[in-house]
Structures are given as C-alpha cells and as structure tokens.
C-alpha cells in the first residue's frame, strides 16, 4: 500500500490529480523516468536553436499527428475498442476549421475558437456514431469495419464536391483537389496578432500541446475512468457485473479520442492551409493503426514514441517513393502483429524488467 491509498483526503485535489501522472496504467515512474522526460522536453525545446525556421516548421508536421495516435491508443489500447474511423474525425475537423475560418476570418482570435468548434463537431459526430455502436453493443471486428465504412463513404462524399454548388458560404469544398486558403492559427496579442505560420512559434505551441495532452491523458488513464476502461478491455462481462455501465465508458473514450483526432485535423489543416479527401482514404486510415500498433497501443508513452519513430522512418523512406514506404508500413504492421503483438517500443521498454526477472529466476534455480 502506498501513501496515496492511505490518506487520500488530506491532500488537495490538485495534488491528487498530479499523483495520477504515474500509476498502474502507464509505463514509467519514479525520478528516473521524469528526469528523462524533462531532458527530452528540454532537448525538444532547444531544437529550434540548432536549426532553421523552415526545418522546424516541417518538424511540426510530425507533432500534429501524435494527438490522433494518442486518442487511438485511448480507444483501442486502453478501451479495447478498435476504431478505424480516426481519420474521419480528423478530416471532419479539418474541413470544419477551413469552412469556419474562410467565412469568418482570423480576427479577434477566431481561429482558436474555430479550433475548439471543429473539435466539438468531431466529438459530436463521434457521440452520435458511438451511441448507435456502443449502445447497440457492437464490439470487436464489427466496430472496426463500421467505422472504416463511415470513413470511406465520407471520403467519397468529399471527393465528389467539386462543383461550384458545393460551397458553404464563401468556402468552396473543391472535391478531390481539396480545400485551401484557410488562415493559419492566429493568437490575438496587444502588439499585433501572432500568426502561426509553420515556423518556430508554431513549433513551441504544438510542442506545448503535445506535452499537455500527453500528461493529461496519463492522468486520465490512471484515474477511476481509466481503470474502468482497462477493466472493460480485459473482460467486459466482469466489468458489467461489477456494476459499471460499460457503454458509457467506451462512448466517453471514443468521443475523447475523436476530439483528439479532430485536434490533429485542425493543426494539420492550419499548418499546411490545406485539406483534401485523401486524408481520409483507406491508406490514410491505416497509418494511425500502424503507428499505434507498432509503438505499443496499450501505453501512451510507447504510442507517442512509436508514432514519432514510425513517422520519421516513413518520411525518410518517402524519398524513394511513397508506394515503397507504404509497403514497408504494411510489412511492419504484419510483423508487429505476428512477433510483438503488444508493440515493438513497448516490448523494448519492458525488456530490462523481463531480463531481470529471468536472471532472478536463474539464480533461484
């Protein structure tokens, strides 16, 4: 028994929340881990000093995807519900951001309002779909193929919006060519608005968001909600017998994951000032699955590290042609599932403990 179990009431709520930064549902605890965490954040913060604005702006591209990956880790890794629809929420939020900002503009910090609204729209769609799926007790493989079908039909719908009649206000949807010309994120500031073009400032904003979302999700999965979610993944019937309405927990995780995918969509759209239906294609929909599966879906840290590593590798391979890179991604997915089902990064992270256990066993014999 640890201290936190014995005297929970004496400490303030804030301290209780912080104590959830580590717990049974996340790898990494103790001063060693957090020292490493601070070093990584410090290195990431120092990176723009050793690089030029253009390269730093391109690095932001990697970070924009991590929110979608962490959301998928929450739904799939922690909740045990395999959603293939992450890119639908990504695209929906991206288009929503585009439509809102093209029509209303970037004044008075409206882009930030648009970001929140786009995330809410993605969350609302997830709540609607999730209501039918989870309250219809759809689980396992059907959940995956229904969410994938929704994504593909949404892609096809957006791809045929080429004509001038497909416009919302002054925002043309432009079919397969995609929507462009939306303003980047803009922070209102007394001495003139800060426009976040892909440069150092945007890098710090997005890096801050990554750290915030990562720590926030760590607290979430180690809270009561996260523990119930894991209990549902391990054995839905048992969780239900213990009195939890598993549908509500799964729906909650699904909506949070969708909103994170929406955050990725908005940041991607604002970063490139561009969104196309192909960001929801079957190939695009497979990529988050690859990142999360290869990293280690049932741990946030492994997911985050895995996503960045796989994205970096993918980008490096793309210079030979994206079709070769995609073949490597497919092979990586098959090999991961066959050889290291819990994820390659997670397997590596657990290796020292496993070796120690083995050597202790050896001594005992």
């Amino acid at each position, binding site marked *: 028994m640890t201290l936190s179990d014995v005297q929970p009431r004496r400490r303030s709520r804030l301290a209780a929340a912080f104590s959830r930064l580590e717990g049974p549902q996340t790898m990494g605890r103790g001063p060693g881990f957090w020292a490493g965490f601070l070093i990584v954040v410090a290195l990431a913060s120092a990176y723009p000093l050793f690089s030029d604005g253009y390269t730093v702006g391109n690095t932001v591209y990697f970070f924009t995807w991590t929110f979608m990956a962490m959301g998928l880790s929450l739904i799939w890794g922690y909740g045990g519900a*395999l959603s293939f629809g992450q890119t639908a929420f990504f695209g929906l939020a991206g288009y929503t951001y585009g439509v809102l900002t093209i029509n209303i503009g970037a004044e008075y910090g409206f882009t930030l309002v648009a970001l929140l609204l786009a995330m809410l729209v993605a969350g609302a769609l997830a709540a609607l*779909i999730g209501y*039918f*799926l989870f*309250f*219809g*007790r*759809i689980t*396992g*493989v*059907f959940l*995956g*193929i*229904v969410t*994938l*079908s*929704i994504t*593909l*039909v949404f892609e*096809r*719908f957006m791809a*045929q919006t080429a004509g001038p009649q497909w416009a919302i206000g002054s925002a043309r949807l432009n079919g397969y060519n995609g929507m462009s010309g939306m303003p980047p994120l803009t922070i209102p500031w007394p001495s003139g608005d800060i426009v976040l073009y892909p440069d150092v400032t945007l890098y710090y904003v997005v890096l801050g968001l990554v750290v915030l979302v990562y720590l926030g999700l760590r607290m979430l999965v180690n809270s009561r909600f996260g523990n119930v979610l894991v209990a549902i993944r391990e054995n839905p019937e048992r969780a239900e017998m213990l009195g939890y309405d598993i549908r509500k927990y799964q729906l909650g995780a699904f909506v949070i994951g969708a909103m994170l995918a929406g955050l990725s969509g908005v940041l991607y759209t604002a970063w490139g000032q561009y969104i196309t239906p192909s960001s929801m*294609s*079957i*190939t695009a929909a*497979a990529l988050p*699955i*690859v990142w999360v*599966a290869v990293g280690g879906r049932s741990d946030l840290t492994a997911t985050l590290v895995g996503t960045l590593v796989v994205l970096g590798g993918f980008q490096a391979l793309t210079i030979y*042609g994206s*079709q*070769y890179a*995609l*073949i490597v*991604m*497919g*092979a*990586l*997915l*098959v090999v991961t*599932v*066959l050889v290291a*089902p819990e994820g390659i990064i997670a397997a590596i992270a657990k290796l020292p403990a496993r070796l120690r256990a083995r050597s202790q066993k050896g001594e005992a014999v």
Partner: protein
Amino acid sequence: MEFLTSIFAAFYQFGDAFAFLVLSACGLAIIFGMMGVINLAHGEFIMCGAYVTVMATRAGIPLPLSILLGSLVAGIIGIALERLVIRHLYGRPLDTIVATWGVSLIATQGTLIVLGSTMQGVGTPLGSFVVGNLSFSTYRIVLIFAALAVLGGLYLLFNKTRFGILARATIQVPHMAEGLGVNTRHVYALTFGLGAALAGLTGGLYAPTMTMVPTMGATFIVEAFVTVVVGGADVFLGTAPAAVVLAVVKAGMTSWQGQLFGQIALLIAVVIVIRLLPRGISGFILKERA
C-alpha cells in the same frame, strides 16, 4: 407500356444492386461466418481476380475461363496467406483484422509499383437490349444470375459435400470436430481459400465493367462490410436476406439521388439495423438475441 418499362427498370436496378452486394460480400461472409475473422484484404483479392482476368483475356483466353482463372489464382494466394499469417492469429480477431490491413497495403502498393497506376481493361461483352424506350446491359443480367448461381453453389457445397459437412462441424464445435479426427487446420485453410476465390470470382465478373486501378478493391469493401454486418454470421440466413433488404435501399436511393447517396443510405441503414438487431439478420432469424 411505359409503366411496364419502369417496373422492369426498377427490377433491373434492384437485381444489379443485389448482385453487387451478394458478390462483394460472399467471400468476406464465408470467412467471417466460419472463422470469425474479418479479412480486410478482401478488396485486394477482388482486385487480384480482376487483374488476372483482364490479363488472361488479353492473352487470348475466353472471358469465362479467364474469370475462373482469376478466381483460382486468388484462392491459391488466399491459402498461402492463411498459412503464412492468418494461421498464427486464430483467437485474436482484432489482430487478424489489423494484420490483413497490412497485407492489403502491401498488395495495393505492390500492384501500383509492378503494374502501374492503371491498366487497359476489356470492354463489357454481350452488348445491350432494349425494353420499351430504355436500353439495358445484357452483361448486368448475367451478373444477377451469377450471384444467384454463387448462392446456389455455396448451398450445395455446404450441404451436400464432404467438405461442407466437415466445415459445418468445425464451425459448430471445433474441439469436438478435432476430436473426431477432422483436420480443422486444413478446413480453415480451405475455407479461407474459398473466401479468397469467391472474392477473385467477383473481381473477374466485374472486371469488364470497371476501370483497372490498384485501389479498385476499395469500391467493393464498403458494400461487403455493410452486407456482412447486417447479415451476421450465416451466409444463407444472413448475407442473402441482408443483400435483398440493402439492395432495395441502395437501388432506391441510387436512382433517386445518385450512387453516393445509395452508399450513404446503406450506411444509415446498417447503423439503424445494428441498433435494433445487434447480431444481424441471421441472429434475428435464429433468435439469438444479444
């Protein structure tokens, strides 16, 4: 006369949608029904069948034989895939779906690299016929009969042959079947191969009507998924009735609002059906309420 023509046109569209749904879904449904596995590379087996069919036809082999050849090649690849990947993942349905997605990525992009982004197709054979003042494609009628023939053939296969009996025994109580000396691994491999061969057959049948691109499999999978979800685990009690219901929805919406709205209507239908009948139509027929 005009009234009769529009009735015929409605039936034709319904039949066309029905054939498309049955043929898209049957391979997926067999594999899902027998093994509980969703094969996300289903679309790529369809693509494989279509490509083999077109290549064989252009090499001078008559179209019906080419279609059978496409089906055969897809079936053999299916058995190989079962040996290499699927076999290791039984009892882990979510992992299977993920692994087959990886296979699907490899197959699509590999085809793109090897054969390029498009391939010259073969024209739709058999021409057209006229009813009233409307013209209809004869080949579409052939496809409708092909769908019915596939359903009939599967019924005979599962009810009248030794393989069918062993397969049904394996699906009902795998351990008992094993105990009685059925080589269940063999049955699973053949079932997966059968599902892949049916997908290849679908590809071959639709190849003359489609543009040959490596991503053509994606055209079929939404319909296939939706039909299997609505139908549930049984091909005859699920897939066939589901295809009838969904074909009405699809044909109605397609002729009213266009192809895309046909698909959107299918999706809405499936979401409503799973809310009401979580185990699909076959579950409802078998009174297997959740």
